[in-house]
Protein backbone atom coordinates (compact mmCIF):
# COMPACT_ATOMS: atom_id res chain seq x y z
CA UNK A 1 0.00 0.00 0.00
CA UNK A 2 2.88 2.35 -0.68
CA UNK A 3 3.32 4.10 -4.03
CA UNK A 4 6.20 3.08 -6.23
CA UNK A 5 9.16 5.38 -6.63
CA UNK A 6 9.01 8.52 -8.69
CA UNK A 7 10.85 11.74 -9.25
CA UNK A 8 9.05 14.82 -7.95
CA UNK A 9 9.06 18.00 -10.02
CA UNK A 10 7.70 21.19 -8.53
CA UNK A 11 7.73 23.89 -11.21
CA UNK A 12 6.49 27.40 -10.55
CA UNK A 13 5.49 28.36 -14.10
CA UNK A 14 2.98 26.73 -16.42
CA UNK A 15 5.58 26.75 -19.21
CA UNK A 16 7.81 24.56 -17.09
CA UNK A 17 4.88 22.18 -16.47
CA UNK A 18 4.30 21.87 -20.21
CA UNK A 19 8.03 21.44 -20.78
CA UNK A 20 8.25 18.62 -18.25
CA UNK A 21 5.23 16.87 -19.76
CA UNK A 22 6.86 17.12 -23.18
CA UNK A 23 10.16 15.86 -21.86
CA UNK A 24 8.85 12.80 -20.02
CA UNK A 25 5.78 11.96 -22.11
CA UNK A 26 3.87 8.94 -20.82
CA UNK A 27 6.28 8.61 -17.91
CA UNK A 28 4.93 11.84 -16.39
CA UNK A 29 1.66 12.60 -14.63
CA UNK A 30 0.35 15.86 -13.28
CA UNK A 31 -0.13 15.88 -9.52
CA UNK A 32 -2.69 18.42 -8.33
CA UNK A 33 -4.39 17.64 -4.99
CA UNK A 34 -3.60 13.96 -5.31
CA UNK A 35 -6.81 12.74 -3.71
CA UNK A 36 -7.51 10.34 -6.59
CA UNK A 37 -3.99 9.87 -7.94
CA UNK A 38 -2.29 9.00 -4.66
CA UNK A 39 -4.78 6.24 -3.71
CA UNK A 40 -4.39 4.77 -7.20
CA UNK A 41 -0.63 4.87 -6.76
CA UNK A 42 -0.88 3.38 -3.28
CA UNK A 43 -2.99 0.55 -4.64
CA UNK A 44 -0.44 0.19 -7.48
CA UNK A 45 -3.18 0.72 -10.02
CA UNK A 46 -1.00 3.55 -11.31
CA UNK A 47 2.74 4.16 -11.35
CA UNK A 48 4.58 7.05 -12.96
CA UNK A 49 8.33 7.65 -12.91
CA UNK A 50 7.73 11.41 -12.86
CA UNK A 51 5.11 13.46 -11.04
CA UNK A 52 4.73 17.09 -12.03
CA UNK A 53 3.36 18.80 -8.93
CA UNK A 54 1.45 21.93 -9.97
CA UNK A 55 0.76 23.26 -6.46
CA UNK A 56 3.45 25.93 -6.74
CA UNK A 57 2.23 27.32 -10.05
CA UNK A 58 0.51 30.41 -8.67
CA UNK A 59 -1.34 31.18 -11.92
CA UNK A 60 -3.26 27.89 -11.59
CA UNK A 61 -4.75 28.84 -8.22
CA UNK A 62 -6.80 31.85 -9.30
CA UNK A 63 -10.56 32.30 -9.37
CA UNK A 64 -11.92 35.11 -11.52
CA UNK A 65 -15.42 36.21 -12.39
CA UNK A 66 -16.35 37.95 -15.64
CA UNK A 67 -19.76 39.02 -16.90
CA UNK A 68 -20.62 35.63 -18.33
CA UNK A 69 -18.56 33.07 -16.51
CA UNK A 70 -16.48 32.16 -13.49
CA UNK A 71 -13.04 30.82 -14.32
CA UNK A 72 -11.58 28.43 -11.78
CA UNK A 73 -7.88 27.61 -12.01
CA UNK A 74 -6.93 23.96 -12.06
CA UNK A 75 -5.23 24.00 -8.68
CA UNK A 76 -8.05 25.70 -6.75
CA UNK A 77 -8.79 23.37 -3.88
CA UNK A 78 -12.36 22.22 -3.42
CA UNK A 79 -12.57 23.52 0.16
CA UNK A 80 -11.61 27.00 -1.06
CA UNK A 81 -14.09 26.86 -3.93
CA UNK A 82 -16.75 25.76 -1.42
CA UNK A 83 -16.33 29.06 0.45
CA UNK A 84 -15.57 31.36 -2.48
CA UNK A 85 -17.93 34.25 -3.30
CA UNK A 86 -17.34 33.98 -7.06
CA UNK A 87 -18.00 30.24 -7.08
CA UNK A 88 -21.25 30.98 -5.23
CA UNK A 89 -22.42 32.62 -8.48
CA UNK A 90 -22.30 29.16 -10.04
CA UNK A 91 -24.79 27.52 -7.68
CA UNK A 92 -24.59 24.06 -9.24
CA UNK A 93 -20.84 23.98 -8.64
CA UNK A 94 -21.23 25.28 -5.09
CA UNK A 95 -23.92 22.68 -4.38
CA UNK A 96 -21.94 19.79 -5.87
CA UNK A 97 -18.73 20.33 -3.93
CA UNK A 98 -20.05 19.25 -0.49
CA UNK A 99 -20.95 15.89 -2.09
CA UNK A 100 -17.30 15.18 -2.89
CA UNK A 101 -15.75 12.73 -0.45
CA UNK A 102 -15.35 14.20 3.02
CA UNK A 103 -14.12 17.59 4.20
CA UNK A 104 -10.73 16.01 4.89
CA UNK A 105 -10.54 15.16 1.16
CA UNK A 106 -11.89 18.48 -0.14
CA UNK A 107 -9.19 20.33 1.78
CA UNK A 108 -6.65 18.87 -0.66
CA UNK A 109 -8.68 17.88 -3.73
CA UNK A 110 -8.87 20.36 -6.57
CA UNK A 111 -11.56 21.43 -9.02
CA UNK A 112 -9.33 20.90 -12.05
CA UNK A 113 -7.90 17.63 -10.82
CA UNK A 114 -11.32 16.11 -10.37
CA UNK A 115 -12.42 17.16 -13.86
CA UNK A 116 -9.18 15.97 -15.48
CA UNK A 117 -9.43 12.66 -13.61
CA UNK A 118 -12.87 12.14 -15.22
CA UNK A 119 -14.27 9.55 -12.89
CA UNK A 120 -17.83 8.87 -14.10
CA UNK A 121 -19.16 8.70 -10.55
CA UNK A 122 -17.68 12.01 -9.48
CA UNK A 123 -19.54 15.28 -9.25
CA UNK A 124 -17.40 17.95 -10.89
CA UNK A 125 -17.24 16.39 -14.37
CA UNK A 126 -21.03 16.27 -14.23
CA UNK A 127 -21.20 19.93 -13.22
CA UNK A 128 -18.96 20.85 -16.15
CA UNK A 129 -21.10 18.84 -18.54
CA UNK A 130 -24.39 20.15 -17.16
CA UNK A 131 -23.35 23.79 -17.43
CA UNK A 132 -21.60 23.52 -20.81
CA UNK A 133 -18.36 24.58 -19.16
CA UNK A 134 -15.29 25.29 -21.26
CA UNK A 135 -12.17 23.37 -20.36
CA UNK A 136 -8.97 25.36 -20.82
CA UNK A 137 -6.06 23.17 -21.89
CA UNK A 138 -2.49 24.40 -22.02
CA UNK A 139 0.03 22.53 -24.12
CA UNK A 140 3.11 23.03 -26.25
CA UNK A 141 0.98 24.87 -28.84
CA UNK A 142 -0.45 27.28 -26.28
CA UNK A 143 -3.97 27.47 -24.85
CA UNK A 144 -7.08 25.94 -26.39
CA UNK A 145 -10.61 25.49 -25.13
CA UNK A 146 -12.57 22.27 -25.19
CA UNK A 147 -16.33 22.14 -24.67
CA UNK A 148 -17.27 19.92 -21.77
CA UNK A 149 -19.56 18.01 -24.15
CA UNK A 150 -16.45 16.88 -26.02
CA UNK A 151 -14.12 16.49 -23.07
CA UNK A 152 -15.19 13.30 -21.30
CA UNK A 153 -14.45 10.28 -23.49
CA UNK A 154 -14.68 7.37 -21.07
CA UNK A 155 -13.73 6.34 -17.55
CA UNK A 156 -10.59 8.37 -16.70
CA UNK A 157 -10.26 9.30 -20.39
CA UNK A 158 -10.50 12.88 -21.62
CA UNK A 159 -9.88 14.87 -24.78
CA UNK A 160 -6.68 16.32 -23.33
CA UNK A 161 -3.80 15.59 -25.70
CA UNK A 162 -0.56 14.08 -24.51
CA UNK A 163 1.48 16.93 -23.19
CA UNK A 164 -1.51 19.09 -22.33
CA UNK A 165 -2.62 20.09 -18.86
CA UNK A 166 -6.08 21.18 -17.83
CA UNK A 167 -5.24 24.71 -16.68
CA UNK A 168 -8.68 26.10 -15.84
CA UNK A 169 -12.41 25.57 -16.24
CA UNK A 170 -14.86 28.31 -17.20
CA UNK A 171 -18.32 27.80 -15.76
CA UNK A 172 -21.00 29.90 -17.50
CA UNK A 173 -23.35 31.96 -15.35
CA UNK A 174 -27.09 31.46 -15.64
CA UNK A 175 -29.52 34.34 -15.37
CA UNK A 176 -32.17 35.25 -12.84
CA UNK A 177 -35.05 32.93 -11.96
CA UNK A 178 -32.78 29.92 -12.08
CA UNK A 179 -32.55 27.01 -9.69
CA UNK A 180 -30.13 24.13 -9.32
CA UNK A 181 -29.94 20.86 -7.41
CA UNK A 182 -27.70 17.87 -6.88
CA UNK A 183 -29.31 14.62 -5.74
CA UNK A 184 -27.42 11.43 -5.03
CA UNK A 185 -28.00 7.98 -3.70
CA UNK A 186 -25.00 6.75 -1.72
CA UNK A 187 -24.70 4.14 1.01
CA UNK A 188 -22.99 6.57 3.29
CA UNK A 189 -22.41 10.29 3.14
CA UNK A 190 -19.15 10.84 1.28
CA UNK A 191 -19.16 7.53 -0.57
CA UNK A 192 -19.09 7.52 -4.33
CA UNK A 193 -22.69 7.96 -5.47
CA UNK A 194 -24.36 4.79 -6.72
CA UNK A 195 -26.29 7.15 -8.93
CA UNK A 196 -26.86 10.87 -9.03
CA UNK A 197 -28.59 13.60 -10.96
CA UNK A 198 -27.72 17.27 -11.37
CA UNK A 199 -30.36 19.65 -12.62
CA UNK A 200 -30.67 23.30 -13.50
CA UNK A 201 -33.68 25.26 -14.73
CA UNK A 202 -34.42 28.84 -15.68
CA UNK A 203 -38.03 29.94 -15.53
CA UNK A 204 -39.77 32.41 -17.81
CA UNK A 205 -42.95 32.94 -15.85
CA UNK A 206 -44.27 29.46 -15.18
CA UNK A 207 -42.54 28.07 -18.25
CA UNK A 208 -39.16 26.35 -18.18
CA UNK A 209 -37.03 28.35 -20.62
CA UNK A 210 -33.77 26.53 -20.05
CA UNK A 211 -32.87 23.22 -18.50
CA UNK A 212 -29.94 20.93 -17.91
CA UNK A 213 -30.07 17.40 -16.57
CA UNK A 214 -26.91 15.34 -16.10
CA UNK A 215 -26.59 11.93 -14.48
CA UNK A 216 -23.62 10.28 -12.82
CA UNK A 217 -22.89 6.64 -12.05
CA UNK A 218 -24.83 5.36 -15.05
CA UNK A 219 -22.13 5.07 -17.70
CA UNK A 220 -18.46 5.52 -18.42
CA UNK A 221 -18.84 9.32 -18.41
CA UNK A 222 -21.37 11.68 -16.87
CA UNK A 223 -24.40 11.64 -19.15
CA UNK A 224 -26.36 14.67 -20.32
CA UNK A 225 -30.07 13.92 -20.79
CA UNK A 226 -30.89 16.10 -23.80
CA UNK A 227 -34.23 14.45 -24.61
CA UNK A 228 -35.48 14.97 -21.08
CA UNK A 229 -34.35 18.60 -21.13
CA UNK A 230 -36.22 19.17 -24.40
CA UNK A 231 -39.34 17.51 -23.01
CA UNK A 232 -39.20 19.66 -19.90
CA UNK A 233 -38.89 22.83 -21.97
CA UNK A 234 -41.62 21.75 -24.40
CA UNK A 235 -43.99 20.72 -21.63
CA UNK A 236 -46.20 23.23 -19.91
CA UNK A 237 -46.24 24.29 -16.30
CA UNK A 238 -47.97 21.06 -15.31
CA UNK A 239 -45.37 18.71 -16.81
CA UNK A 240 -45.21 15.47 -14.86
CA UNK A 241 -41.63 15.30 -13.61
CA UNK A 242 -41.90 11.52 -13.35
CA UNK A 243 -42.33 11.50 -17.13
CA UNK A 244 -39.22 13.62 -17.52
CA UNK A 245 -37.37 11.21 -15.25
CA UNK A 246 -38.49 8.26 -17.38
CA UNK A 247 -37.36 10.01 -20.57
CA UNK A 248 -33.99 10.69 -18.95
CA UNK A 249 -33.62 7.09 -17.83
CA UNK A 250 -34.83 5.38 -21.01
CA UNK A 251 -31.55 5.40 -22.98
CA UNK A 252 -29.32 4.65 -20.00
CA UNK A 253 -27.48 1.35 -19.77
CA UNK A 254 -25.96 1.41 -16.29
CA UNK A 255 -23.55 -1.33 -15.25
CA UNK A 256 -23.62 -3.83 -12.43
CA UNK A 257 -21.04 -3.50 -9.75
CA UNK A 258 -20.51 -4.68 -6.22
CA UNK A 259 -22.41 -1.68 -4.84
CA UNK A 260 -25.59 -1.85 -6.92
CA UNK A 261 -27.07 -3.83 -9.77
CA UNK A 262 -27.77 -2.36 -13.18
CA UNK A 263 -31.43 -3.10 -12.58
CA UNK A 264 -31.42 -1.08 -9.37
CA UNK A 265 -29.70 1.86 -11.03
CA UNK A 266 -32.19 1.74 -13.91
CA UNK A 267 -35.05 1.56 -11.44
CA UNK A 268 -34.05 4.58 -9.37
CA UNK A 269 -32.91 6.76 -12.29
CA UNK A 270 -36.31 8.36 -12.98
CA UNK A 271 -36.83 9.08 -9.29
CA UNK A 272 -33.45 10.72 -8.79
CA UNK A 273 -34.05 12.94 -11.84
CA UNK A 274 -37.48 13.87 -10.53
CA UNK A 275 -36.02 14.75 -7.14
CA UNK A 276 -33.32 16.93 -8.67
CA UNK A 277 -35.80 18.73 -10.92
CA UNK A 278 -38.28 19.23 -8.10
CA UNK A 279 -35.60 20.86 -5.98
CA UNK A 280 -34.25 22.97 -8.85
CA UNK A 281 -37.73 24.21 -9.79
CA UNK A 282 -38.49 25.02 -6.18
CA UNK A 283 -35.35 27.11 -5.95
CA UNK A 284 -36.07 28.84 -9.27
CA UNK A 285 -39.54 29.81 -8.06
CA UNK A 286 -38.34 31.15 -4.73
Amino acid sequence: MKPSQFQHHAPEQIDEVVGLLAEYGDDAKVLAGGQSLIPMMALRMAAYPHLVDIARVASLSTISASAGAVRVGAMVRQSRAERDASVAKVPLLAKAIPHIGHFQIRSRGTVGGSIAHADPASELPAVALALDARIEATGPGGVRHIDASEFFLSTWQTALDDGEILSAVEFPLWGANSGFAVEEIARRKGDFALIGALAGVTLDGARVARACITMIGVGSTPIRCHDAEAALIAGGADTDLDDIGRIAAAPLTPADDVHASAEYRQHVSPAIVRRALTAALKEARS
Partner: protein
Amino acid sequence: MNDRTRVQLTVNGQREQVEVEPRALLADVLRDQLGLTGTHLACEHGVCGACTVLIDGEAARSCLVFAVQAEGASVTTVEGLTPPDGLSPVQEAMRDCHGLQCGFCTPGIVVSMTAYLDTHPNPTDAELRDAMSGNLCRCTGYQGILAAARQAADRMSASS
Protein backbone atom coordinates in the same frame (compact mmCIF):
# COMPACT_ATOMS: atom_id res chain seq x y z
CA MET B 1 15.14 7.93 -8.54
CA ASN B 2 15.96 7.11 -4.93
CA ASP B 3 17.24 10.62 -4.55
CA ARG B 4 16.14 12.13 -1.33
CA THR B 5 14.65 15.57 -1.20
CA ARG B 6 14.97 18.00 1.65
CA VAL B 7 11.62 19.17 3.01
CA GLN B 8 11.17 21.96 5.50
CA LEU B 9 7.91 22.16 7.34
CA THR B 10 6.49 23.21 10.67
CA VAL B 11 5.08 20.42 12.81
CA ASN B 12 3.17 21.27 15.97
CA GLY B 13 4.76 24.70 15.96
CA GLN B 14 8.32 23.45 15.59
CA ARG B 15 10.43 23.96 12.47
CA GLU B 16 11.57 20.61 11.08
CA GLN B 17 13.78 19.55 8.23
CA VAL B 18 13.67 16.02 6.85
CA GLU B 19 15.30 14.18 3.98
CA VAL B 20 12.72 12.03 2.25
CA GLU B 21 12.12 9.93 -0.82
CA PRO B 22 9.56 11.71 -2.99
CA ARG B 23 7.14 8.82 -2.52
CA ALA B 24 7.29 9.07 1.28
CA LEU B 25 3.85 9.76 2.67
CA LEU B 26 3.51 12.60 5.13
CA ALA B 27 2.04 10.06 7.58
CA ASP B 28 5.14 7.88 7.42
CA VAL B 29 7.47 10.84 7.78
CA LEU B 30 5.57 12.08 10.83
CA ARG B 31 5.73 8.66 12.43
CA ASP B 32 9.08 7.28 11.37
CA GLN B 33 11.27 10.34 11.06
CA LEU B 34 9.71 12.74 13.51
CA GLY B 35 8.60 10.15 16.07
CA LEU B 36 5.01 11.42 16.15
CA THR B 37 3.35 8.03 16.37
CA GLY B 38 0.00 9.46 17.42
CA THR B 39 -0.88 9.66 13.72
CA HIS B 40 -2.05 6.15 12.82
CA LEU B 41 -2.11 4.44 9.45
CA ALA B 42 -4.69 1.83 8.59
CA CYS B 43 -6.12 1.75 5.07
CA GLU B 44 -3.37 3.85 3.45
CA HIS B 45 -5.66 4.96 0.63
CA GLY B 46 -7.70 7.74 2.14
CA VAL B 47 -10.80 5.89 3.30
CA CYS B 48 -10.48 5.27 7.04
CA GLY B 49 -9.38 8.66 8.37
CA ALA B 50 -7.02 7.29 11.05
CA CYS B 51 -4.12 9.38 9.70
CA THR B 52 -5.99 12.70 9.67
CA VAL B 53 -3.83 15.72 10.54
CA LEU B 54 -4.21 19.46 10.06
CA ILE B 55 -2.30 20.97 7.14
CA ASP B 56 -2.30 24.76 7.31
CA GLY B 57 -5.28 24.46 9.64
CA GLU B 58 -7.39 22.20 7.45
CA ALA B 59 -8.00 18.52 8.18
CA ALA B 60 -6.43 16.21 5.59
CA ARG B 61 -5.44 12.58 5.16
CA SER B 62 -1.71 12.36 5.75
CA CYS B 63 -1.67 9.10 3.74
CA LEU B 64 -2.84 11.07 0.68
CA VAL B 65 -0.14 13.69 0.89
CA PHE B 66 3.47 13.13 -0.07
CA ALA B 67 5.81 14.77 2.40
CA VAL B 68 7.33 16.74 -0.50
CA GLN B 69 3.92 18.36 -1.01
CA ALA B 70 4.06 19.65 2.56
CA GLU B 71 7.12 21.81 1.88
CA GLY B 72 6.58 25.05 3.78
CA ALA B 73 3.32 23.86 5.30
CA SER B 74 2.29 23.94 8.92
CA VAL B 75 1.19 20.51 10.12
CA THR B 76 -0.61 19.79 13.37
CA THR B 77 -0.90 16.23 14.63
CA VAL B 78 -2.92 14.87 17.53
CA GLU B 79 0.10 15.51 19.75
CA GLY B 80 -0.14 19.19 18.84
CA LEU B 81 -3.81 19.35 19.77
CA THR B 82 -3.12 18.03 23.25
CA PRO B 83 -2.58 20.70 25.91
CA PRO B 84 0.58 20.42 28.04
CA ASP B 85 -1.60 19.48 31.00
CA GLY B 86 -4.75 17.41 30.75
CA LEU B 87 -6.90 16.96 27.68
CA SER B 88 -8.50 19.17 25.05
CA PRO B 89 -12.31 19.55 25.17
CA VAL B 90 -12.61 17.06 22.32
CA GLN B 91 -10.33 14.53 24.00
CA GLU B 92 -12.19 14.98 27.28
CA ALA B 93 -15.50 14.40 25.53
CA MET B 94 -14.20 11.25 23.87
CA ARG B 95 -13.21 9.93 27.30
CA ASP B 96 -16.44 11.01 29.03
CA CYS B 97 -18.72 9.56 26.36
CA HIS B 98 -16.84 6.30 25.74
CA GLY B 99 -15.95 7.44 22.24
CA LEU B 100 -13.22 4.85 22.00
CA GLN B 101 -12.49 1.25 22.77
CA CYS B 102 -9.24 0.05 21.20
CA GLY B 103 -8.26 3.62 20.38
CA PHE B 104 -6.63 3.01 17.03
CA CYS B 105 -8.93 5.37 15.12
CA THR B 106 -9.07 7.91 17.95
CA PRO B 107 -6.28 10.28 16.86
CA GLY B 108 -7.89 10.76 13.46
CA ILE B 109 -11.27 11.27 15.07
CA VAL B 110 -9.91 13.82 17.54
CA VAL B 111 -8.23 15.77 14.73
CA SER B 112 -11.31 15.66 12.47
CA MET B 113 -13.67 16.62 15.28
CA THR B 114 -11.45 19.46 16.42
CA ALA B 115 -11.13 20.83 12.89
CA TYR B 116 -14.85 20.60 12.26
CA LEU B 117 -15.90 22.21 15.54
CA ASP B 118 -13.39 25.03 15.08
CA THR B 119 -15.24 26.10 11.93
CA HIS B 120 -18.78 24.96 12.86
CA PRO B 121 -19.44 26.10 16.43
CA ASN B 122 -23.15 25.21 16.58
CA PRO B 123 -23.66 22.02 14.60
CA THR B 124 -26.87 20.02 14.55
CA ASP B 125 -26.75 16.30 15.33
CA ALA B 126 -27.25 15.57 11.63
CA GLU B 127 -24.33 17.79 10.72
CA LEU B 128 -22.15 16.03 13.27
CA ARG B 129 -23.04 12.66 11.73
CA ASP B 130 -22.01 13.97 8.33
CA ALA B 131 -18.86 15.54 9.72
CA MET B 132 -17.74 12.34 11.40
CA SER B 133 -18.58 10.11 8.43
CA GLY B 134 -15.04 10.36 7.13
CA ASN B 135 -13.56 8.43 10.06
CA LEU B 136 -14.07 4.71 10.42
CA CYS B 137 -14.15 2.96 13.77
CA ARG B 138 -14.41 -0.79 14.11
CA CYS B 139 -15.37 -1.02 17.76
CA THR B 140 -17.50 1.68 19.32
CA GLY B 141 -20.49 1.54 17.01
CA TYR B 142 -20.17 5.31 16.58
CA GLN B 143 -22.83 6.36 19.11
CA GLY B 144 -20.21 7.18 21.71
CA ILE B 145 -18.24 9.15 19.12
CA LEU B 146 -21.31 11.16 18.16
CA ALA B 147 -22.16 11.76 21.82
CA ALA B 148 -18.61 13.02 22.30
CA ALA B 149 -18.95 15.33 19.32
CA ARG B 150 -22.17 16.71 20.81
CA GLN B 151 -20.62 17.27 24.23
CA ALA B 152 -17.51 18.88 22.79
CA ALA B 153 -19.58 21.15 20.53
CA ASP B 154 -21.80 22.24 23.41
CA ARG B 155 -18.95 22.85 25.84
CA MET B 156 -16.78 24.64 23.31
CA SER B 157 -19.59 27.00 22.25
CA ALA B 158 -20.58 27.62 25.89
CA SER B 159 -17.03 28.61 26.81
CA SER B 160 -16.40 30.83 23.79
